[in-house]
C-alpha cells in the first residue's frame, strides 16, 4: 500500500474512503445474499396455511375435554363444570404466581381453550382424561417437573413461570370455534 506517489496528504484519505465504500458494499452484499437463505428457514407458505383449526364443541359433554392439533401443538378444549368454574373464580387473582382472572382467560364461562404445553419446558400436562392426574388444583399436572395448573389453566405450584397460554380463537357459531 506504500506505492501511492501522492503521499499521505491526498492518497491516504482517498484510499480510506475507497476501503470504507468497498467494505460497505461487501456488507450489504453479504446481507442481501444471506437474507433469502435465512428466510427459507422460516415457516413456508403451506405451513402457514395450516395455521387455523376448526373445532365442533357440540359433542363435548360437560366435564369432558378434548385435545386438538393446531400448528403441530396440542390445544386443550374443556367444557368446565359449574364447580370447576366456581373454584377457578374463588381464588383472588393477585395471589397467584402469574396473576390473571378466570374471566380474562375465557370467552364463554364453560369453555376453556388452552395451548396444552407446559410453560416450563414444553411437555404436555396430563388432565385431559378423567383418569389422568390433575394435580392439586383439579386442572392439569405436568409430569415432567411437577407443575400444577388449576381449572383455569393457571400455574399454582411448581417450576412453570406462566399460566398455560390461551390461543387466539373465535366462536364462529354457538357450538363452533376457530383456533388461530
Amino acid at each position, binding site marked *: 500500500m506504500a506505492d501511492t506517489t501522492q503521499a499521505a496528504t491526498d492518497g491516504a484519505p482517498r484510499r480510506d474512503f475507497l476501503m470504507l465504500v468497498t467494505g460497505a458494499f461487501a456488507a450489504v452484499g453479504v446481507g442481501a445474499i444471506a437474507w*433469502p437463505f435465512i*428466510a427459507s428457514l422460516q415457516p*413456508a*407458505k403451506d405451513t402457514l396455511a395450516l395455521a387455523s383449526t376448526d373445532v365442533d364443541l357440540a359433542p363435548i359433554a360437560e366435564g369432558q375435554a378434548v385435545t386438538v392439533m393446531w400448528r403441530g401443538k396440542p390445544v386443550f378444549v374443556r367444557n368446565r363444570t359449574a364447580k370447576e368454574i366456581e373454584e377457578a373464580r374463588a381464588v383472588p387473582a393477585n395471589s397467584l404466581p402469574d396473576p390473571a382472572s378466570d374471566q380474562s382467560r375465557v370467552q364463554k364461562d364453560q369453555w376453556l381453550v388452552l395451548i396444552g404445553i407446559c410453560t416450563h419446558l414444553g411437555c404436555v400436562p396430563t388432565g385431559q382424561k378423567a383418569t389422568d392426574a390433575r394435580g392439586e388444583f383439579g386442572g392439569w399436572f405436568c409430569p415432567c417437573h411437577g407443575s400444577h395448573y388449576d381449572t383455569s389453566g393457571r400455574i399454582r405450584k411448581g417450576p412453570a413461570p406462566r399460566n398455560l397460554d390461551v390461543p387466539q380463537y373465535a366462536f364462529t357459531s354457538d357450538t363452533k370455534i376457530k383456533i388461530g
Partner: protein
Amino acid sequence: MSIGLHNSEFKNPVVRWIDQRMPVFTMMQKEYGTFPTPKNFNYFWNFGALAMVTLLIMIATGIFLSMNYAAHTSLAFDSVERIMRDVNFGWLIRYIHMNGASMFFIVVYIHIFRGMYYGSYKAPRELLWMLGVVIFLLMMATAFMGYVLPWGQMSFWGATVITNLFSAFPVVGNFIVELLWGGFSVDNPTLNRFFSLHYLLPFVIFGVVFLHVAALHITGSNNPLGIEPKGPQDTLPFHPYYTAKDSVGLVVYFIVFAVLVFFAPNYLGHPDNYIPANPLVTPPHIVPEWYFLPYYAILRAVPDKLGGVLLMFGSILVWFVLPWLDRSPVRSMRFRPLARPFFLLWTVCFLVLLWVGAKPAEGHYVLIARIATAYYFAYFLVILPLLGRLERPLPLPESISRPVLGGGPLPAGAAAKPMEKA
C-alpha cells in the same frame, strides 16, 4: 521440523497468539498473499477461482435445498414443487442450484480449454492436471445424480439410460447395474442412494480441489507464454494483484449467472422434467443435460453397444494420459504453429458434438457425429504424438518480462535458475 511455537510475523496479538500455535495465518499469507504468481496472466486464469466459488455456491444452496427435499419416489417431485411455490425464496435457491450446475460446467470447460491451449498439463504439472480430470469425473457423477433427484420424466429416464450403460460390460455388467439400482429398475432405492451420494460427492470434490490447489502451489501456475518465471521480476504477489483481477472476472461471472437465474432459469433445462416420473412411458426424445451432450453424441455415434460405451468413457479417460501423448516441450499453443489450428479444430469438434448430441440420432446427424468423434480421438492419439516429433515451434521469449516490458535486461544469473518455491 522444530518443535515449539511458530515464529509468527503477525503483530495483532490475537492473530499472533493463534498463529504461533497453529500457523494458518502464515500459511494463508504465503499461499494467497505473497504467493509469487506469473505477472502475465490473461482472463483465462480467472476460471479456477470461479470454479471454486461455484463449488461453494452449489454446496451452500444444496444444503438449504436438502432441508426441504424428500428423497422418496412418492414425495420427491412434490417436495421440489413445494420448494418452488411454498418455501420462502425456495424458487431462488433452487434456480441458483440448477443453473449453478450449468455455470459450473461452463466455467470448468473454459478452465480445461485454458489448460489444453496453454499446455498446463505438461511437466511438472501432470499430477495437477490428472487431479483436475478426477474432479471433472466427480462433477459429472454429482451432476447426473442431482438431476435425478426432482424425479421428473427426464430424471427417471436419464437415470435409466445412464445406469444401463454399465450393462454393456460383459460378465459384470448386470451385476453393476443392479448394484446401482438396488433393485431391478430405477426405483426408490436408486433415488435414496443417489441422494446420499449427491450430498457426499461435493465434499469429496472439495477434498480433491484441495489437493489440486496443493499441487498447484508446488509447481506454481503456468502462464500464457508457457515458460517458467525466471525470478521475482517475472512474478507478482497473488494479493492484491490477482485477488483484484479475479474479482473483476467474478463480477462478470455473477452478471451472467444472474441473467440465467432471473431471466431464463429454465432455458438450459428440459421441460419434460416438470412431468412427474412415469416408469411406463418414455418421453419421445431423451436428452441429457447440455453439459453431457458431447459424450452422449460419441455414445450414439458408435453402432455397437459396448464400443459406444467404451468410447464415451474413453473420451474423458484419454485426458489422463494427455501429458504423455503430447511430447512437445513447448507448452503454449502461441508458439506451436501446427498444433494450434489442430487444437482449435478439436475445440470446434467438441462443440459440434455438443450440438449434435441434442439432435435425433438419424440421417446426416449420425455422419456428423462420427466424423467429429473420429477427429476427437485422432487429435489425442495420432496428431499430438506426431506433432511432438514433426512440429518446429516458434522461438520462445527469453523470459516473461521480455515481451511485457519490451526487452528489459535480465538480472545476472536469473536466466538459468528456476524460481524458488517453498
